[in-house]
């Protein structure tokens, strides 16, 4: 444990000075890829630029972005949260029960389910800082526990009689192109950017993630900060699941897959492509946003290119692997050039 921490710290401090210099180019690289692929798809497929497709693409992006953020805010601590999918579905099932079982109205249920998600995240955080066990194991266990409890309590029954506003909201089109869900994720992105750049809480999160010992010495309550990061992760997971519920109009136990594992890939891809360091301490809100856009765009384009549905995953995996490798290569080249 200690040694892993040490080695990650050393790479971290080395990377930070260099990556900060190329801070702009990381996001720029993603934006470039997005534009290239968008152009290719627009030229090669019919319908990519159609009103409906752009609308649907935007809506898919919006959910993936928030899923990516829910992982990003924990990666900041140098940890991760495998239970995002479980927390998300548990939270909306809780919300569904509040509405259908308790007769609560929509805004109250919404607030309570977001808080519920935050609470489940906080439980993860408390266990991580109290035991000192790596968050991978803790959240591996809780993804099973949360999902199991949810399934047991609901007996796998979906909540299908939600107020019609929920589904209507998910189908709303602004100017025919834009889903209000995309505005929500833009709002979240702005709030997170402000948090990390302009608030002391956000800066503490980054400092604690980069070097817990140093942060502790300079007066940051590292444990409490980490718990807050996990709570924020739970809250964002609950928000993403709520947006998904708007999309389907029902709270369904299987909506994030078995034990919520269908969210793992989008949750990690967006921050990692966006340049968030797995060792913690560095975060790129814009990069995560672009990362989610790129993944959704590729999926959408591959489907439109009529790549057989069954090969989409393989192609997507290969593209992502190359993206990660290219990014690494670029960093290496940039580093070398700097030293020459």
């Amino acid at each position, binding site marked *: 444990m200690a040694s892993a921490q040490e080695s990650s710290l050393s790479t971290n401090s080395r990377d930070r000075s260099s990556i900060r210099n190329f801070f702009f180019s990381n996001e720029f690289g993603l934006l470039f890829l997005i534009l290239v692929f968008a152009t290719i798809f627009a030229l090669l497929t*019919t*319908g*990519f630029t*159609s009103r*409906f*497709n752009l609308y*649907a693409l935007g809506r*898919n992006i919006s*959910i993936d972005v928030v899923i990516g953020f829910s992982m990003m805010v924990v990666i900041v601590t140098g940890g991760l949260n495998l239970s995002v999918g479980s927390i998300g579905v548990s939270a909306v099932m809780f919300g569904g029960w509040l509405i259908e079982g308790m007769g609560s109205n929509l805004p109250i249920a919404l607030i309570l389910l977001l808080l519920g998600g935050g609470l489940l995240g906080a439980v993860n955080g408390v266990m991580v800082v109290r035991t000192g066990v790596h968050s991978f194991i803790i959240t591996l266990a809780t993804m099973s526990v949360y999902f199991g409890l949810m399934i047991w309590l609901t*007996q*796998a029954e*979906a909540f*299908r009689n939600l107020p019609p506003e929920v*589904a209507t909201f*998910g*189908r709303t089109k602004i100017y025919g192109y834009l889903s209000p869900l995309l505005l929500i994720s833009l709002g979240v992105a702005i709030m997170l950017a402000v948090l990390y750049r302009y608030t002391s809480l956000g800066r503490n999160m980054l400092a604690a993630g980069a070097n817990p010992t140093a942060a502790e010495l300079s007066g940051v309550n590292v444990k409490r900060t980490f718990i807050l990061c996990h709570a924020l992760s739970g809250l964002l997971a609950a928000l993403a699941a709520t947006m*998904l519920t708007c*999309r*389907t*109009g*029902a709270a*369904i*136990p*299987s*909506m994030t*897959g078995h034990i919520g594992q*269908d969210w793992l890939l989008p949750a990690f891809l967006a921050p990692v492509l966006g340049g968030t360091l797995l060792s913690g301490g560095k975060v790129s809100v814009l990069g995560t946003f672009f990362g989610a856009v790129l993944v959704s765009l590729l*999926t*959408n384009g591959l*489907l*439109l290119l*009529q790549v057989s*549905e*069954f090969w*989409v*995953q393989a192609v997507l995996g290969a593209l992502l692997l190359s993206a990660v490798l290219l990014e690494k290569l670029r960093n290496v080249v940039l580093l070398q050039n700097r030293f020459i």
Partner: protein
Amino acid sequence: MTQENVFQEFGRKSFRTLKNCLLGTTLACLTASPVLASDTRVALVPGGPHPYFAAWEKAGQDAKRDFGLSGADYRVPQKWELSQQNQLLESLLTQGYNGFLIFPGDPVGTNSIASELTAEGTPVIALAGCLKQPTPAVFCLGTDTGNSAYLGTKELIKTLGGKGKIAHFTGFLVDPNTQLRIDAVQKAANETGGAVEVIQVIADIDAPEPAEEKINAFLAAQADKVDGIVTTAWVPAVVAANSLRKIGDKRIKMVGIDHDEVVLKAIKDGYVHGTMLQNPYGQGYIGSFAMNKLRSGCKVNQNAPFKSTALTNQFIDSGTAFVGRDKVDTYIGAMEAVTKDLMASFESTYLVCN
């Protein structure tokens, strides 16, 4: 394509139709509809990869040929996941498909995308599973799963001589059909007035590994106490058939479901009493036919003799049949007969065309 080719193509098509009529291998000749190129492009979209739906592909190809559709393609979401299915449906709409035959990933959750599809002017038919009303789907064409489970259990009880203890293995608990099946098996048992008892229901095993583990554990514990097994989902049927073969027990009678090779072979070899066939081919074939009609001006006959289920009152039964050892070699013919029956009167019964 030159004009000549078009004519040749048309000639070939009609010739094939004629030939099919003579051989009686397909049902095209029954419909009396001329084979003219139509702009209908149907997508047959299951909830995810599952062997049950494989027959839809052939059904779509046959329907395309027989009714001159411009397409009837079987497109599968790569995972059994609602958002994957939604994303695929969005993409298919963008790709220009204009009629959707959908197995709903969720009876309510899929309504949302279905209403978006219909808002773009493409009709939706729920296939093999129903959407909960109110729904934009014009009707639901599928197996009456409750009835199939009921009939299967009746067959099992008959071969058990009207008494005994039975177990029920079924599929995903999140599938709304599962509860219907559990209730139907119980109902058939209750009708014996206590002579037949359902001693255990094992659910949520529509994936091979957990099914293997749980069914074997059950047989290990209860094999000497149980007299019969009814399975109402594809994977449990396959796994249970294999397990019975493994322990070599022909005392326990089993009624399975669907037409997996493993189950059919176990019936031949006497390890399984029989299976309840469903009619996925007929669903795909008749569904494509109906979709084409709907797009060319036909409307649904609101006074048609629709059945009612827990989800919808616009349900059309695509048929079910029990196949035992005597009919196992000719089951395809049996299902074709069911499809033929339904097809013969489909247009006049369920549609109003000008």
